[in-house]
């Protein structure tokens, strides 16, 4: 395949800004707007829950006499709220923006899209009621009660139809990487989500746990990873105004991810009551994950070659490239923890939330924040309310995030080390972590300020655009 020719395609495809100034006006973007605005709002609301559960580690009596505010009910609200209230709908909103542009056509049905957004909001509000009330199915990431699960499936099919139909009517024959990742997310999720939420109902014990881990792992690996990478593949070239380094490399990254990821679920049960040979398979494939990760990351870094100076004041790019670094680190940790010797120390400790937040917050939420900052002014045909504030958002997230990840790794490692010495009473290992949890809480406060500035900046941009359109013609910004 002639690499040069491929790159030529990308220049026009991924950067139509100057080339086709009017192209953007065919897009209505109502669906994307609804998805993004509601997800940013939930980000803020769920951020309050996040702080509350972090605070409960420092002050365990806090809100302790109120059943529906107990830790065991707010934690699933935090996890589901962040995953299905903020991150996933933000990525869906961005997909509704990106896919039509990569296909050169309008979204297949804006009406269907709006209906999907409304349904999604019903689901999130349902979860906000159900989880504190104690309706919890009992599987991690799959806590939502069955009626809400059924609605998620319906919403997913509506999303899938809209995107596939848009791709089917596309003007450009060749599909850019972001499209494959988006389409693949739709396909895989259709099987992964029901495995974790419905198939588990027909099994028990270890067999059920195995399905549950297949789901949990692939919720991250085959839902949030591909849709997140789809966005990174679109926004890195866009925000830096540079063509993607290599189309071929992106194909290698994609197909190796598609093959390797699904095998690794059992690495959550290493040393646990599950067959040794299955653990070994999961470990082997976890190590192989380095292949897709390093190809993807290399492609992004190579794209940035000669462009790094842009990081100084290009805010979407700051989020994107820090996200890429966090992706590299997370996916280096993952294969390492799956090794039996390392796993014996870090598994079940506070290291794991440190790892999980670097992936879902440090990497994929950074991509989604960046995308939102990039598209909202464009969709509303105005300028971002404040670049300086957006820069604050970045630093709040960055410093808060690092404080969160690094202290939990150190603390978690230390905790695991102590657990492996049974002469230390368990409660002493709890007390030892108290300073770590205090730092985590205050890092959480910083990140919450990041969320708050983000929400304010986005809402102010939207409000400004409303006042502006009355007076001036839309400003075309690049």
């Amino acid at each position, binding site marked *: 395949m002639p690499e040069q020719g491929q790159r030529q395609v990308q220049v026009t495809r991924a950067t139509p800004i100057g080339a086709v100034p009017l192209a953007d006006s065919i897009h209505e973007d109502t669906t994307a707007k609804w998805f993004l605005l509601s997800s940013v709002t939930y980000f803020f609301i769920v951020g309050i829950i996040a702080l509350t559960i972090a605070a409960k580690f420092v002050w*365990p009596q806090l809100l*302790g006499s109120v059943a529906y505010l107990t830790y065991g009910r707010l*934690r699933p609200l935090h996890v589901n709220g962040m995953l299905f209230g903020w991150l996933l709908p933000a990525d869906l909103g961005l997909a509704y923006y990106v896919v039509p542009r990569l296909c050169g056509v309008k979204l297949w049905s804006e009406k269907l899209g709006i209906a999907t957004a409304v349904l999604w909001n019903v689901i999130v509000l349902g979860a906000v009621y159900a989880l504190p009330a104690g309706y*919890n199915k009992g599987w991690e990431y799959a806590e939502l009660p069955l009626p809400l699960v059924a609605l998620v499936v319906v919403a997913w099919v509506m999303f899938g139809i809209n995107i596939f139909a848009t791709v089917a009517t596309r003007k450009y024959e060749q599909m850019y990487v972001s499209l494959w990742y988006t389409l693949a997310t739709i396909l895989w999720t259709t099987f992964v989500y029901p495995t974790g939420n419905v198939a588990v109902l027909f099994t028990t014990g270890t067999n059920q746990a195995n399905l549950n881990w297949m789901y949990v792992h692939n919720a991250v690996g085959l839902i949030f990873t591909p849709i997140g990478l789809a966005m990174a593949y679109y926004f890195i070239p866009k925000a830096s105004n540079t063509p993607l380094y290599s189309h071929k490399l992106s194909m290698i990254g994609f197909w190796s991810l598609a093959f390797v990821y699904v095998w690794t679920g059992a690495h959550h049960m290493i*040393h646990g009551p599950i067959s040794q040979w299955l653990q070994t398979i999961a470990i082997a494939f976890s190590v192989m994950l380095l292949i897709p990760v390093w190809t993807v990351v290399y492609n992004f870094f190579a794209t940035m070659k000669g462009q790094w100076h842009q990081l100084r004041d290009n805010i979407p790019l700051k989020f994107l490239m820090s996200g890429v670094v966090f992706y590299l680190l997370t996916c280096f940790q993952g294969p390492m923890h799956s090794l039996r010797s390392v796993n014996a120390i870090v598994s079940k400790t506070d290291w794991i939330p440190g790892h999980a937040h670097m992936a879902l917050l440090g990497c994929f939420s950074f991509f989604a924040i960046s995308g939102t900052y990039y598209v909202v002014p464009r969709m509303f045909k105005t300028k971002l309310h404040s670049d300086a504030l957006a820069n604050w958002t970045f630093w709040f997230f960055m410093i808060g995030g690092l404080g969160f990840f690094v202290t939990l790794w150190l603390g978690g490692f230390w905790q695991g080390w102590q657990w492996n010495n049974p002469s230390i009473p368990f409660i002493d290992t709890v007390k030892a972590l108290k300073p770590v949890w205090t730092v985590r809480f205050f890092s959480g406060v910083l990140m919450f300020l990041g969320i708050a500035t983000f929400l304010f900046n986005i809402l102010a941009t939207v409000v400004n655009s409303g006042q502006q359109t009355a007076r001036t013609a839309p400003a075309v910004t690049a």
Partner: protein
Amino acid sequence: MLGNTDKSAIGFVIAALVFFFIGGLLTTVVPPLVDKSWSKPFENEDPSKGPTGKLRQYTELELKGRAIYVKEGCWYCHTQQTRTLLADTKRSGWKGVDSPISTPDEFVYDSPHMFGTKRTGPDLSRVGGKYDRQWHRTHFRNPRDLTPGSVMPPFPWIANDDEQFNALVAYIQTLGRAKNWRPDNDYEK
């Protein structure tokens, strides 16, 4: 084959699903067929093969207690698995007796499974019989009264409601008891 999947959406869909199903089926559907111990309840009468005992179905009361354990999210802080690590067998054990390692056949009647992923609190796979009712009552009212420095939340609405409390304690006392692992049968009630 894969070279053209960026042009043909149909080819792409087929390839993406085939890749997914190879790994997906081999790691979820096949293992329980190969490894029968995942579905055969624990039973052992021969002391030379390790602890004796038999896994039984939960009673109605225990199931009610289990539902509370699920509902209150105890499983976000407690695991139920003694792993194949020396330290785990020491920590899940008590009064000088080490815990046997957890095996899949001990969990055949568990749904939702409660293996857990995080040990903010200690592992509970062998906690059945470790403490008596009075201890649990005090502990649920305020864990710090018994264990200063604990970060376990108080559960006054359980401690003060006999129906819920009895059910939950009945469930806790079953944990790890399929294997009769205490030589002196010194379980608390």
